[in-house]
Structure formats: C-alpha cells, structure tokens
C-alpha cells in the first residue's frame, strides 16, 4: 500500500507546493466564518498543477450552511463544466448538516469524516484507536463515508481492527492522519476574535475580524508539561516526535494518507 502525502494550507493558500505532496487540503476545518466560494478557484488551480484536492468544511449554523450550499453549487458548476475533476476532489464533513447538504447537492465526489466528526465511529486516545461498533461504521458507510480523519497523537496506538478486537471483521474504512497537531477542543465563541458577551447582548452570530488569520499562540499551562497552541477557536497540542516507524506500521493502523499541517 502506497502512502499518499498531503499538505493543509491556511487561508492565504500558496502559489505552489512541493512535489512530495500529491494532495492539497483547503478550506476551513474549524470555523464557518471562513467559508468562502473563493476556495473553489483554489481547488481548480491546484488541480491544474496536478494535485488532488480536498475541501475541508467546519461545524455549521444555518448561516454557515448557506455559505457551504453556495460553495457546493459552485463546485457542481465547475464539475459540470469539466473545470474540476471529480476523481481528484474529496470533501471532508464535520457536521450532519453538511452531510445532508452534500447529499442534496449530489456531488459525484468522495466524502470523508473530519477530525470533529470521526468520533462518531472511532475513539482515539494517545495510546489507542478503536472502532466503536459495527452499527456506527455501517451508518456512515451507507452515507458514502469510508475515510476518517484523525490527528497524530502518539506512536503506534493499540487498535481493535480485528474480529477478536471488535467482534466482527471490520472493513470499509481508511484513515487520513493529520500531523503534527492534535485538535483538543473547539469553541464557537472564538477565543481571539469574538468580543465579550454581556448579559443583555443578543448574539446574532460570531462577529469577528478574522483574527485567527493573524497567527497561532503558544500557551504555557502550569499543570501541563506540553505547550498548548491556540488558533482562533481551537486549542491544539503538538506531537513533534516521529509518530510512526514505518509505512508497514501505518498500514496496520489503516492509515493510507498523511497530511502535514505546517501551522495549527
């Protein structure tokens, strides 16, 4: 099994990416405020450069769902006119609403469960990666999801991917492993962007100036030896060490794609 390599690009994108990376991941994974139809042009551009592309999508409110619907309409148009190749495009879902939207849009592309959605089927800890149950796996398979995105969280976790481990022969899934940052938690009320909310404030949405694009922050927590990293509404940890010893090890974990995230 050949391991594919991808790179996740932030809002600003990049003119080109090194040849090692045959996949380019674009789009906002954690915040709907960053959903913009302009991402479609970037998907087209990277496909023209010979790359496969994956659109990341976040948790959605109705406002974000409207933005994502607009993106899906544009993708449908680009696919229809041949400017995008469906065989080299995937969409990562992090919300049941996004899953419903994708079903409505009938885009002829593969869907994956993102890092905030894969927990419905797999439980990940630093020392283990477990399939929860057959029903959950089938539930997502029936809805077209075979790929699950997880973060690197330590070398060679234990798995239960066998009949003796989970009580049935588990088939029909593969992992994309993002490294080196693990997303620990996400808030909607952005840590760096949103203004404070007073008792009489009626919140109409997450009003921000896209401060998450400024930088990430490294935070020392007195009770934890590792540093926490914060970008926008999400808290990460970094796992800088080597998280696998060989491609064989990745195969055992059913990881067939690695995605490098230069920044959290």
């Amino acid at each position: 099994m050949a391991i594919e390599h991808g790179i996740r690009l932030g809002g600003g994108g990049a003119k080109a990416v090194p040849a090692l990376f045959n996949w380019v991941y674009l789009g906002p994974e954690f915040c709907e405020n960053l959903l913009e139809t302009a991402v479609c042009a970037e998907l087209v551009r990277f496909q023209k450069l010979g790359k496969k592309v994956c659109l990341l999508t976040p948790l959605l409110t109705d406002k974000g769902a409207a933005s994502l619907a607009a993106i899906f309409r544009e993708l449908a148009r680009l696919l229809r006119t041949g400017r995008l190749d469906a065989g080299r495009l995937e969409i990562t879902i992090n919300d049941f609403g996004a899953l419903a939207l994708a079903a409505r849009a009938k885009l002829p592309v593969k869907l994956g469960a993102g890092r905030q959605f894969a927990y419905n089927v797999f439980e990940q800890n630093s020392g283990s990666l477990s399939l929860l149950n057959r029903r959950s796996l089938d539930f997502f398979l029936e809805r077209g999801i075979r790929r699950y995105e997880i973060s690197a969280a330590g070398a060679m976790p234990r798995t239960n991917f066998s009949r003796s481990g989970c009580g049935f022969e588990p088939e029909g899934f593969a992992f994309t492993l993002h490294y080196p940052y693990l997303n620990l938690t996400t808030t909607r009320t952005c840590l760096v962007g949103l203004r404070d909310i007073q008792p009489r404030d009626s919140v109409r949405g997450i009003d921000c100036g896209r401060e998450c694009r400024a930088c990430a922050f490294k935070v020392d927590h007195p009770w934890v030896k590792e540093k926490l990293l914060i970008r926008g509404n999400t808290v990460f940890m970094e796992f800088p060490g080597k998280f696998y010893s060989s491609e064989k090890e990745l195969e055992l974990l059913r990881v067939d794609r690695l995605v490098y995230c230069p920044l959290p």
Partner: protein
Amino acid sequence: MKILSCFSDIEEIKPLAAAGADELYCAVTGLPSFGEPAALPDLRAFGKAARAAHRLGLKISLAVNSVVPKLTPAEEGGLLKNLAAASAAGADAFIAASPAVIELLSLAEPKPAVHLSSVQPCFNSLTAEFFIGLGVSRIILPNQLSPYEARGILKLCHARGVETEIFDYRFFGCAYVNGRCSLHRPGYYTAAAAVQKGSMCRLNLPGSLPVPRTVGVAPEWKYRLGGITGRLAERLGRGGAPRMGNAASLYDYFAAGVGYLKYGTRRDPPDVKARKVADMRATLDHARELAAAYPAREARERFIKRLEGWDGKKY
C-alpha cells in the same frame, strides 16, 4: 417552558418535584451515558425511580448519550435488551447522541421517544431535520447556539411537532463545543501537577499564565497583534471563551416557545439540586408574569435587569 432536572438518587425525586421540576432524567450505571458518573446503580433502581416520578406526575428520561459507545455485536444485543427493559420499567424517553444508539432505539418495541443530546451538537436546521428523520422527538440545543441562530431549528421543530430544550446558562456553561472536547483526556498530555476535575477545560488561572507567544505571524497583522494577544491572555486567565448563554438568551428562548429548561449537574448534592430547581422555577414564573404584564421589549428588559443581579455564589 417546563423544567427538566437531573437526579442521581431516588431520594432526590420528591424534593425536586416540590421545588418545581416538571420532568426528570438520570443515568444508570452500565448503560452508556456521557460525562460524570453520578448514576443510579442498576435498572431495578431505575424502575423504582420511574414509579416514584410517575406517582408525582413527572415524566422520566434515561440518558444513554455516550458519544463513544464501544460495543461488539453481542454487546449491542445486550444493550438493546437493557433499553427495552428500561422502557418497560417506565422510561418515558431516552436521551441519545450516537447514531448507533439512536438506530438501536428505533428497533425497540414499542418504539420509545428519543431526545437528541446536546453532546451530538445540533447547530443548524439541516442537522435537526436529519435527526428528526431518524425518529428524534426532542432536540436539546447546544449551549453555544444563540436564539437568533436557532430560529431556523425552532421553526422546523415547531412545524414538525418536535420538542426543544435548552440548558439554564446559570448552571451549565461549557466554553467549548460539548461532546467534542478532549481537554479532559489526561492521556494526551503529561501532568506537571494534579489537575482538578474540569479545570483543564476552563483554564481558569487568573494572573498565573504567562502571556501567550505568537507563532507564524502573518505580516499584515504584525501591528494589530497587541489587542488580540491581550484578549486571549485575559480570557485564558478568567475561564476560557465567552459564554453564549446569558439573561437575554434565556428570555429570548423562553419567548420563542422553547419547551424545556434543563438543569443537569448530576454531581451536585441533593439540597443544591433542589435549590437550583426552585431558582429556575422562580425565574420562569417571573418571565411568565412579565410576558403577561408588559409589552415584549419591556418584559425582556425587566427580566434581564432582574437576572443581572443574580448571584451564583450562593451555590
């Protein structure tokens, strides 16, 4: 708006009913529920609790809302039997989060009512529609959704006859998306000191955190970083991200016709549970009185003013 209260011991039922609870919920040890372990010991105890609740005219629901129910096919059969037993013992509804458990519940006969847990966060009307399609009859809204943002969900639920529920922001206020938070998993980090339960989540360390350092600064933001860094440092020091829930949101959800107000801190001592429910009852009675006596805007203003003086320290 009715009041739904948690309980973790059968002895709590009468005081909670007297304090004003309209419905109750609990967890049972051995069944997959989310979060804190305060639960009834077994289904026999649940049956007793259900009878006690029903005698007082209260409905009772059972939380089986684990986000990560680990089940072999054989264990799945066992869970289905237990769910049927809980139903027969008097469960009026089940609170569920995992699609697998929701599907399992749809196989039970007679088909029980299912409430979508807030730990399977429903932030949009498409998600609401998706789970209504799976048979959910009540949606518990996540605390990080404002009434304005929820209006599509509320409209859909109203049209479909699906009930809605919110948390009382005064007694529950996770700063992060509930159900998707891994800050409580010590396996991910190396403790440098004893981590108090729940404290990692809030990072509530006023004055003791060094100023966050920037990483990978975008050049166009270079001269605007001071304010952002200060905001982040201040927030980490006082408990994390801003809370969406406030007096205004409680009144707006009330006015929008949300059916249930929830209190769910199962670990609270029995007397605190009863006092909090009594507080919720007084708050809702006041909201009703204001809504009947004043034009909408004035009722809202008066409600907010009263809650601005509310002091949570008494608990």
